[in-house]
């Protein structure tokens, strides 16, 4: 037995939780003084050592590092399974009160590697902030803009600064170079009155009718109506097939993305609960534990692997710990392939669709 290794494991404690890391970062960057505190009075003697480590690991980040480096540790965890998290989310969703508007504020984005300076920016950050009236009496309000591109992590920001803090970039996207700028667009705002909405809905209904007659002229992905959505919980296999679209053939990673899209639309608490329950019944979704999204929010990540020509990714559905509020999805790079992920490190958030607001509200902007 190696005595050094024995000492290491004897003294080992669970790794710091995401909250501890975030709080420390905040204190350090605020250059706060070390807090004076009466050391020695708060130490819980009877709980020293591994008892604490085991208990703490239950609430801490579940860090599972596989072999290799001798420093790596596998801490005991009593982390919930993805299924348990989803069932808890379903229960929570079923009891949410509805309001006058469905308020949805979503920001999309994609990672681009900048060769000059070797860092990653999040670009194509399209932002939609909308209030959808629940009844026919209220206006819908729709705001959108392109938010500017930004370096993705603090390390990327540092590299960007070393490169002279450029505010425009030429990056590779779908085989060609496109421009990205740090300057955000102005918001544009569109208000839809109940009368206008009625006209729009009529137009959609007519389009659907024409589609039924001549399927060929229709877009491949037909949007289903609100009424059709609300009927889905009555038919679990239909909801499951819908989440596994296209055509019920998508895998668990497609289901996570589709579920996030689905949950971003107004729906009854019953419908939202049914979506979580359906995900809970699927294979291939795992709980990755606590993570921090690109906006610094703490989240529980439910993940499924997916691969395409650009690499292997973990598609992650992010839920706020405790409330199970959906924070959006991130597609995290596991290993890259091809030009578009070239230069990106594992862990880069390749695409993101983050929910800044998502839920019922009683007021909308005038």
């Amino acid at each position, binding site marked *: 037995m190696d005595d050094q290794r024995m000492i290491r494991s004897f003294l080992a404690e669970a790794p710091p939780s995401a909250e501890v890391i975030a709080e420390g970062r905040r204190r350090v960057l605020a250059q706060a003084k070390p807090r004076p505190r009466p050391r020695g009075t708060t130490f819980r003697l009877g709980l020293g050592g591994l008892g604490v480590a085991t208990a703490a690991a239950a609430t801490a980040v579940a860090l599972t590092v596989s072999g290799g480096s001798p420093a790596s540790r596998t*801490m005991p965890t009593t982390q919930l399974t993805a299924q348990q998290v989803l069932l808890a989310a379903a229960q929570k969703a079923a009891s949410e009160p509805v309001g006058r508007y469905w308020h949805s504020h979503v920001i999309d984005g994609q990672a681009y590697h900048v060769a000059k300076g070797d860092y990653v920016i999040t670009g194509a950050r399209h932002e939609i902030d909308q209030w959808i009236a629940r009844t026919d009496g209220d206006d819908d309000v729709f705001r959108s803009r392109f938010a500017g591109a930004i370096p993705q992590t603090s390390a990327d920001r540092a590299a960007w600064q070393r490169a002279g803090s450029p505010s425009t970039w030429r990056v590779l996207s779908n085989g060609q170079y496109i421009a990205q700028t740090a300057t955000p667009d102005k918001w544009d705002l569109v208000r839809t009155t109940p009368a206008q909405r009625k006209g729009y809905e009529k137009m959609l209904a007519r389009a659907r009718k024409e589609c039924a007659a001549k399927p060929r002229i229709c877009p491949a992905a037909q949007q289903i109506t609100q009424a059709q959505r609300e009927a889905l919980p009555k038919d679990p296999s239909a909801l499951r097939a819908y989440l596994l679209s296209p055509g019920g053939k998508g895998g668990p990673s497609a289901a996570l993305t589709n579920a996030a899209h689905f949950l971003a639309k107004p729906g009854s608490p019953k419908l939202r609960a049914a979506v979580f329950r359906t995900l809970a019944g699927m294979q291939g979704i795992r709980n990755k534990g606590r993570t921090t999204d690109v906006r610094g929010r703490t989240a529980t990540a439910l993940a499924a692997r997916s691969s395409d020509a650009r690499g292997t990714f973990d598609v992650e559905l992010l839920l706020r710990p405790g409330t199970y509020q959906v924070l959006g999805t991130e597609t995290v790079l596991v290993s890259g392939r091809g030009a578009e992920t070239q230069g990106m490190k594992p862990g880069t958030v390749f695409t993101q669709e983050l929910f800044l607001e998502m839920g019922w509200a009683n007021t909308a902007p005038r």
Partner: protein
Amino acid sequence: MKGARIAEPAARTPDAFAALYDEHFPAIYDYVASRLGRDVADDIAADTFVIALRKHGGYDPEKGPVRPWLFGIATRLVAQHRRHEMRRYRALAKLGPEEVADSHENRVVNWVRAEGLQPRLAKALAALPRGQRDVLLLSAVSELSHEEISVALGISYGTVGSRLSRARKKVRSALGEDNDG
């Protein structure tokens, strides 16, 4: 090498410092938690970086990478909490034989417990002179090299070697000869 050289003056900017924090905080935390326990580890690990940021001028990139410098600050902070550290070793000596998950590290810990060695190991660690314990734990817990430890503690390479071998000898003899190697 884990500790990348963060060149001045880039690291003067808060973002560069945040990157340094993100890279090194978990390791510093592990080190402090191993010596003082989780109750105070979050504060002291963060204090390490607060001091590092304030003493930025004191960091000399010529002397080596950032990592040992941070461990040096952490070790000086740990030294201010000697009573804490001693209490932790006493508490660890009394650990009950409760079952823990079956990871490799835990099998090692269980073995230490099954053999009834934890009081001896804890006592041996507590009995070490501080200088020897600093070297031993930087090496055993955080796996710093001799060179890194010499930078962290501001002692010569030779002193690192002699303190480490003395400390290991004491621990091994406390555990009994049959547990060597």
